[in-house]
């Protein structure tokens, strides 16, 4: 509740709050009047963003992103995000676009999944079930801080950039940067996709006074050293951060979900003619459907022909409309002059079912990048792949020899792209230039592109969950456990996952807790009709240690015989025995007991 007070103080101009199904995210407007979120400059609604001022559109994007994260995470504590659009550092050729992070960390909080471990504050709050960073406390009361550069695209500030795209869709125009994807990414860092190790010294956060690792680094595993980051010395961490291709995320959830998100290495197979038949490497495209299955797309490969013109000086580059018959076939075009997506689109318009682009220079297998125009990329509906110059020459030899039948797919025995030999998703550990300064990201070898790669904002779906993405899986691995009823009991262990019951009370010991069990004592009488929902359900009637061996039957009102006997108030033993007789007679009259059973109970009652 204290955070609500903060909200009122900080957002006098705009107080957006949204209540979501699983978590509540509160956006605190950190901008001054007239700027950023409060910028009154008129704006044309775009891509589902109906704001009519720059300020409204910016806030709409924040709320949209908050809704995606709120639907993915469960927390009983509102997550507060202080956002602002303002001037960040920039010049004509470079700029800081955005920055974000957790505003505090916490360790050894109530219900901490792992002790002596720093947690991002929003996650610590979730596990504790309380706001650990209240207003007036020792640390910043905000959970996340996010700042965007409002000057991008203006004179003197990366003016060649087309600026931000505020649409809520993925139809990002060429040259613009999708704010939704960027913000999803930045939220991810603040919520848990980051570590706090000192980049310069390799020391844990809080040293020298506290030597705890953070929860993120405890999942970082170096395949060369065969050690987790929290097991390493500071100097070992400095070495490990440069171990490109060998630093993996050792979280079980991300590993388990990786096959549903990542693809295997592309494979281009020539089936005939026999002179060139075989398997060849193939890169994928960042547009159109990804041909990531085995055996993939099969068909006849034909050289596509287009006009020689200003758009393309070759008749095999596919830069203009295809003029020969590629209908129902896989078109082969040469790389060069125009973008990959244009070539593939031209082939699709001519009826091709797939495209192979042959490289025009020697080199390794490389993927084909997006056109930069989200809407254009999404208009492509056929798969495509890229082969090396050597493979392209092999194809040409095949075409000269006769009909070429091919297959575009994946190598079924290859590892997933972006994983190690154990199937663990690789972390980015660059060896040059920005050495080790981007560890809080997935490796760029991941395919499909992932939200938390260091440079990937194109062709991303606005999702954090598999099969689109692995960010939520990573969050699960650090302790953002699913808890739909936010009662601090993980759904998988919760006997009422959709009804808050922190005590997990379960009177009858069945699969459902009392909070969601319609018959708590399992006596066959629904609780709403039960005179005693928590009946004594022992199997036989026992009176003062005397086991009658008669069944403890249930009366129509939900009371058991033991309930009724326990409720008897008698001033002496004779009265008690008489009352028991009355109850058992009633049970017999209802057909619940036999005469022998009734007699056995009455004998117990009569005994001293």
């Amino acid at each position, binding site marked *: 509740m204290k955070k609500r007070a903060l909200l009122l103080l900080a957002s006098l101009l705009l107080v957006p709050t949204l209540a979501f199904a699983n978590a509540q995210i509160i956006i605190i407007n950190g901008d001054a009047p007239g700027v950023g979120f409060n910028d009154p400059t008129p704006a044309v609604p775009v891509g589902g963003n109906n704001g009519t001022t720059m300020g409204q559109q910016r806030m709409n994007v924040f709320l949209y992103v908050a809704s995606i994260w709120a639907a993915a995470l469960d927390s009983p504590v509102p997550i507060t995000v202080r956002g602002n659009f303002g001037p960040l550092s920039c010049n004509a050729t470079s700029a800081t676009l955005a920055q974000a992070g957790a505003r505090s960390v916490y360790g050894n909080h109530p219900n901490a999944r792992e002790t002596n471990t720093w947690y991002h504050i929003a996650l610590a709050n979730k596990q504790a079930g309380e706001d650990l960073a209240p207003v007036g406390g020792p640390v910043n009361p905000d959970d996340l*801080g996010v700042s965007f550069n409002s000057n991008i695209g203006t004179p003197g500030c990366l003016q060649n950039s087309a600026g931000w795209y505020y649409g809520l869709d993925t139809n990002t125009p060429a040259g613009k940067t999708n704010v939704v994807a960027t913000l999803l*990414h930045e939220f991810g860092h603040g919520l848990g996709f980051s570590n706090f190790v000192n980049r310069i010294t390799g020391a844990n956060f809080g040293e020298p006074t506290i030597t705890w690792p953070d929860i993120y680094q405890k999942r970082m595993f170096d395949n060369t050293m065969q050690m987790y980051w929290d097991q390493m010395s500071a100097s070992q961490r400095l070495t490990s951060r440069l171990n490109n291709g060998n630093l993996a995320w050792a979280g079980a959830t991300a590993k388990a979900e990786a096959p549903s998100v990542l693809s295997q290495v592309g494979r281009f197979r020539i089936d005939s003619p026999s002179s060139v038949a075989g398997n060849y490497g193939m890169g994928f495209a960042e547009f159109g459907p990804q041909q990531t299955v085995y055996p993939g797309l099969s068909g006849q490969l034909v050289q596509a022909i287009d006009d020689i013109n200003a758009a393309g000086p070759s008749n095999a580059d596919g830069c203009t409309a295809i003029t020969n018959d590629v209908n129902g076939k896989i078109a082969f075009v040469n790389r060069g002059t125009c973008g990959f997506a244009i070539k593939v689109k031209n082939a699709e318009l001519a009826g091709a079912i797939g495209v192979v682009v042959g490289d025009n220079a020697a080199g390794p297998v490389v*993927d084909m990048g997006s056109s930069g125009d989200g809407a254009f990329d999404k208009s492509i509906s056929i798969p495509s792949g890229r082969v090396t110059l050597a493979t392209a020459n092999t194809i040409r030899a095949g075409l000269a020899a006769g009909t070429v039948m091919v297959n575009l797919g994946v190598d079924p025995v290859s590892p997933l792209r972006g994983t190690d030999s154990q199937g663990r998703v690789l972390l980015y550990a660059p060896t040059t230039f920005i050495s080790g300064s981007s560890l809080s990201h997935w490796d760029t070898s991941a395919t499909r592109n992932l939200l938390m790669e260091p440079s990937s904002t194109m062709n991303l779906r606005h999702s954090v969950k598999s099969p689109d993405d692995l960010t939520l899986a990573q969050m699960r691995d650090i302790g953002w456990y699913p808890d739909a009823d936010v009662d601090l009991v993980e759904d998988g262990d919760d006997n009422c996952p959709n009804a808050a019951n922190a005590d997990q009370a379960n009177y009858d010991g069945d699969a459902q807790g009392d909070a969601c069990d319609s018959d708590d004592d399992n006596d066959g009488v629904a609780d709403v009709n039960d005179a005693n929902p928590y009946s004594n359900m022992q199997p036989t009637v026992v009176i003062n240690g005397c086991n009658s061996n008669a069944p403890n039957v249930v009366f129509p009102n939900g009371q058991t015989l033991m309930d009724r006997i326990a409720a008897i108030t008698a001033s002496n033993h004779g009265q008690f025995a008489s009352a028991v007789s009355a109850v058992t007679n009633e049970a017999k009259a209802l057909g619940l007991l036999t005469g022998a059973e009734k007699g056995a109970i009455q004998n117990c009652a009569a005994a001293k």
Partner: protein
Amino acid sequence: MKRRSSAVLVALCLSATSMMAAQSADRQATDNGVRTAVDANGNLRQPTIEEHRALDAATAARPSIMRVVTLSSTGGASASVDESNDHTLVARTDMDGNIVLICTDDSHAAATFAASTAPIDTILRLKPAQRRAERE
């Protein structure tokens, strides 16, 4: 590089006596936690009243810059994370005029990237098979 607003870094103290001292009105900004000063040799000592007041003022002015590790009475510990630790998305125009983006783990790396003229491919895709997909 972490910014520190004073030569004396205020840190935590685990001792019970210090916990009791936290009740001082001068330390109200720490709520249920404790501040202890660390001298140039790394030894803990009680901060002076002036140091407490200076920290209160600095924290109020720039609450996210200070790194104050605070221990609660229940054994938990908390610390603000300063903004230099923010993940920073930086853009740069490459030699071909394309805008290239990269997210770095801190502002120092972001500044280094922005100022560099190194070829983009050496930054984003280091192994041949991992090179950033080309557009044409």
